[in-house]
Structure formats: structure tokens, C-alpha cells
């Protein structure tokens, strides 16, 4: 039991979403009542298992956890948010909306309720309202990079690439060391046809994470397009010589990555395809 508690605690700290693990470890704890031995942590575990149970569809388990929390903390906004999530899982979206609205009326800074409200609007398909609500939330809670990520996602659904690029820029400022965010930004730039800038970003991705395959593919796409078009007069643009060098480098690295440990047939197929990029 101690091991399970430790794993759950680590998952809480790292904020990873692994509902199957949580349910597998947490279910016996909750059902046997052994979770109460964890004292203060017990309630955190209840909350964690409740959310995970909703994720995997185990409504009964979720109900049990939420019930326990309600008995201990009646009227708490944190528990009411869980109630809202339960209703969302059952599909009663309007009821859930009412709960979140009530929480926000009591305490307008409640981050959890505000976030759930945005996602609720998205689930109901009201994308425009969801975007408006999220923008309002981010105006107040600027450093929430996950919020910015979510907003970028929503803009991309609406094909509003310029705004999505803006959101990714904010994310980059908040989390500059994460190469995945650079990658997403690069791909948005490429979609906007801003190939020169996209190339630089793809290079950054590979710089941060050596031999990142998606980054290398991005480089290849950009360089092949830039080499085909006429050389730009812009001083900041990459020189032809550099372009060719980078192109060669990307090809070489891709071949290296794919040839390491793959079957001969796969190797020849991938080689052919890479050289035609």
C-alpha cells in the first residue's frame, strides 16, 4: 500500500495524466478503506482517483470518492467542481454549467471552475464562446501556459492560424526549454506559409533535442521549398549555401536514425522517400 501511495503522490507532483494507473492502484485503496490510513493525503488521493475514474469511465468508483469528499468537506468549491465534472461525464452539460456558474459567482478567481467552464463550452460545441471565455481567463491568469496551449488548439480548430501562432509565442516565452512547443510553433508557421521563419524554428527544435525526427522532416520540407523558390533579398534570410548544408545535414541525420536497427527493406523504402522529399 505504501508503494501505491508513493506512485500516486509522484503522479500528482508531475501532473501526468495516467488514469489507468491511478485507477488500478487507487481502486483497491478506496474500496478497502485503506486510503484513510494516509491521513491528510487521503483526500488528495480521493480527488485524484475520482478524476481518473471519470477518465476511464468507472462512474461508480468516481461517485464513491466524491461522496466521501462531500461528507468531509461539505459545500467546498473544490468538491463542487468534481460534482460538475461528474455531471459532464454523464452528459448532463447544462446542469454542470449551472454548478460552475454558481462557484464563479461566489469566488470569481476560482481557477478550477473557470477552466471547467471553458472546456464545457467547447464540449457543447460553442467554440466561439469557449474562445472568448478562455481569452478572458488568460487576461487575468497570464502565466498559465496550459491555458495558452488550449487556446492555440481552439484557434487551430477554427483555422485561425495567426492567433494560434500568437498563443504559441506566449507558450514559448513561458516554457522556453520545451522543444515540443517550438515544434508546434514551427508547424503553425509552416502552415501559414512563413517558410523562412519555420525553418529557423525547426532548426531550434533539433538544436534542443538532438536528432528529433519530426524536426528534421520539418527542416527537409522547408529547405526543399526554399531551394526551389528564388533566393530572397532579405538580409536575415538563410543563404543558399547554408540551405544546402542544412538540407544535407537533415538528410544525413534522418538516414542515420532510420538505418539504426530497422530491417533492410524498411531501410531502403525510407531512404528512397527521404531522398525524394
Amino acid at each position: 500500500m505504501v508503494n501505491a501511495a508513493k506512485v500516486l503522490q509522484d503522479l500528482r507532483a508531475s501532473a501526468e495524466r495516467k488514469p489507468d494507473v491511478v485507477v488500478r492502484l487507487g481502486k483497491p485503496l478506496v474500496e478497502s478503506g485503506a486510503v484513510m490510513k494516509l491521513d491528510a493525503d487521503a483526500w488528495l488521493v480521493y480527488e485524484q482517483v475520482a478524476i481518473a475514474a471519470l477518465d476511464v469511465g468507472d462512474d461508480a468508483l468516481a461517485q464513491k470518492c466524491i461522496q466521501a469528499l462531500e461528507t468531509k468537506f461539505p459545500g467546498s468549491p473544490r468538491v463542487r467542481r468534481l460534482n460538475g465534472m461528474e455531471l459532464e461525464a454523464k452528459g448532463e452539460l447544462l446542469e454542470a454549467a449551472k454548478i460552475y456558474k454558481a462557484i464563479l459567482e461566489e469566488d470569481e478567481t476560482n481557477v478550477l471552475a473557470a477552466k471547467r467552464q471553458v472546456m464545457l463550452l467547447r464540449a457543447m460545441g460553442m467554440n466561439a464562446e469557449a474562445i472568448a471565455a478562455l481569452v478572458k481567463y488568460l487576461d487575468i491568469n497570464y502565466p498559465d501556459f496550459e491555458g495558452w496551449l488550449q487556446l492555440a488548439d481552439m484557434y487551430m480548430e477554427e483555422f485561425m492560424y495567426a492567433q494560434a501562432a500568437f498563443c504559441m509565442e506566449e507558450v514559448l516565452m513561458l516554457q522556453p526549454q520545451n522543444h515540443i512547443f517550438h515544434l508546434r510553433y514551427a508547424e503553425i508557421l509552416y502552415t501559414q506559409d512563413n517558410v523562412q521563419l519555420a525553418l529557423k524554428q525547426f532548426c531550434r527544435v533539433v538544436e534542443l533535442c538532438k536528432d528529433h525526427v519530426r524536426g528534421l522532416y520539418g527542416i527537409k520540407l522547408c529547405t526543399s521549398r526554399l531551394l526551389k523558390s528564388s533566393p530572397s533579398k532579405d538580409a536575415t534570410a538563410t543563404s543558399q549555401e547554408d540551405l544546402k548544408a542544412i538540407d544535407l545535414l537533415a538528410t544525413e541525420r534522418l538516414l542515420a536514425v532510420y538505418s539504426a536497427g530497422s530491417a533492410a527493406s524498411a531501410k531502403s523504402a525510407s531512404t528512397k522517400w527521404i531522398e525524394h522529399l
Partner: protein
Amino acid sequence: MSGQLNPEDALYVDMFIAKNSQTMTFIRSSYSAILGLAAGILGLTNWSGFVFYFVGSAFLSTLVFLVKAKASPGTYFRSPFDVFTEGVLGGLLSYILFWTLLYGIIHVYD
């Protein structure tokens, strides 16, 4: 690390740095207390006592440096010298306390 735009700050996750400092302080304070007990029992006085502390402290730092930080403290702390300097002063105070306590109990009293 190569490819840095900003000073290496961008690479450091704040939470981990804080956790590492906390662990370092924890190790050092427990170690200093025990070292103080040892110094008191041994009956060290004056300079030998302080030298004992700093030598012991350096020994601990080297151990952490080699075993836990695997000789690359730059990956665990902002500055590689943090391994040697983190929590030394706080440790010194508790060292003095326990040193005085044990010295008193064993050498001054019956």
C-alpha cells in the same frame, strides 16, 4: 550546454532546483548535528572543532558531488559550486549547538 539563447536559466526547471536545494539543506543539517555530537564526544576545542566541521562538510560535499551528482553538479544546481556552499552556515550553527551540548555533558559535568 550548447545552443543557449539566454543564460542557462531557460534550461532549469524551478521546481527541481528548489527540491535539490531542499534535499541538500536537509542532508547538511542532519549531518552537521551528528558531526556536532561527534565533536563534543571527542572533546575538541577551539580551532580543531571548527576545522573538524569544515573538513567534515567538505567530505560530505565531495561525497554528494561524486555519488549523487555523478560529478556533474551543473545538471542538478544552477551553479556547480552550490553543492559545496548550500546550507553550510545553517549547518554551522546547529553544529555549534550540538558540539557545545555534548562537550558540556561529557567533559564538564560528571
